[in-house]
């Protein structure tokens, strides 16, 4: 079945990488910041790199905050895109910045117990929940992470990462899902997650 998958044009820099990753799976995707276009997509990707403050400012300027909050189809946030899905982020020069509030949680600076930040490189997952997004993914596989902030583990966590402290590597609530790592740059394991997302049944 041909699907209409739209990547939200957040103005962030990894949009091309995310689009190419779907194209490698022979899945065509569009990039748009038009709320009506995003609303009628079968599935939506929310990419993001950089800082939460800049990215949320961009979503506000584009008038995308409410339209994104009203989506009912599967939505996948990637890296900063995932962090924007929770209630608020501490990654801002002036205190907390409100995020989209799609999934309960807060973004805090990682307390890496003396380890180097950013947490940059390939790492594994643990406590992987049964969820269609994570079919075929196990604790032996590595994913590419680049981040200094993270979401705490909670009952919306589908898989944990660990870097000095446990943090939420994959989260979900209803139709909203997010991955802290970059599936588009995580080799075959990352491609598997994207394929799982494509194959999700609405």
């Amino acid at each position, binding site marked *: 079945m041909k699907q209409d998958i739209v990547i939200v044009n957040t103005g962030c820099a990894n949009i*091309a990488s995310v689009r190419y*990753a779907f194209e*490698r799976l022979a899945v065509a995707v569009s990039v748009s910041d038009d709320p009506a276009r995003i609303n009628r997509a079968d599935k939506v990707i929310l990419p993001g790199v*950089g800082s939460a403050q800049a990215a949320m400012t961009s979503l506000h300027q584009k008038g995308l905050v409410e339209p994104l909050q009203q989506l009912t189809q599967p939505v996948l946030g990637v890296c900063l895109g995932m962090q924007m899905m929770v209630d608020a982020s501490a990654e801002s020069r002036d205190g907390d910045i409100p995020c989209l509030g799609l999934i309960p949680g807060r973004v805090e600076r990682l307390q890496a117990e003396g380890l*180097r930040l*950013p947490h940059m490189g390939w790492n594994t997952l643990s406590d992987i929940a049964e969820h269609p997004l994570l079919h075929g993914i196990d604790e032996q596989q590595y994913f590419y992470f680049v981040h*200094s902030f993270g979401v705490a583990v909670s009952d919306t966590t589908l898989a944990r990462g660990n870097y000095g402290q446990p943090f939420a590597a994959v989260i979900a609530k209803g139709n909203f899902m997010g991955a802290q790592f970059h599936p588009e740059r995580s080799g075959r394991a*990352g491609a598997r997650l994207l394929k799982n997302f494509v194959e999700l049944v609405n």
Partner: protein
Amino acid sequence: MLAKRIIPCLDVRDGKVVKGVQFRNHEIVGDIVPLAQRYAEAGADELVFYDITASSDARVVDKSWVSRIAQVIDIPFCVAGGIKSIEDAGRILEMGADKISVNSPALANPDLIRALHDTFGQQCVVVGIDSFFDAQTGQYQVYQFTGDEKRTQATRWQTQDWVAEVQQLGAGEIVLNCMNQDGVRQGYDIPQLSSIRARCNVPLIASGGAGSMAHFADVFTQADVDGALAASVFHKGVIDIPALKQYLRQQGVAMRNDDRECV
């Protein structure tokens, strides 16, 4: 556990991958995209593309190959060479690069590092440092314009001071190229890398000197670097990446496995 990274480096000149010895006598190794694809397939954890002519020639370089690479590979990659402004960096990141690396332009204008950090985030700002051990003074000195033998020159910076400065300005990762070792395959500069490691709170990548699999084990276990970069040993087939990663696993170094059955 966070894996250590194996990073093939592809020096690019006029759209071809080249390799020289101690920055001289460049010979063509092959086309960029097939080589990148081959390394990604072989299990490389990341790739770095250095346009070695860009900074020293002061010209705008055709970077259309960046998007061709982004289309075919599924691992992160970094582009270096001639990135002098936010606009230069933005174009490369939009084409699909995950990180950009600055070297000579950051020495000329250290504020570039801060601007890149503030615009694109720390995660994509890599600072490359060419460091040369001066036996007369006993100091490690930062060099610039190392892509062009005629223009290569020492800067006023000692390596450890520049490492501290670039972290202060917002670098997300440092690639330390030990020039005395470059291309001669006698092993990484463990004393220098260990000394810089102690002063470096961001990921540190070792560059220059890889000749054997044992050299990789040494640099990971003795200098605790996050990644090891190498060129000729991979280009010339001296070291096979899957065999290297298997060997390093046996040495107790955390290595990613790339599960080919997964998709």
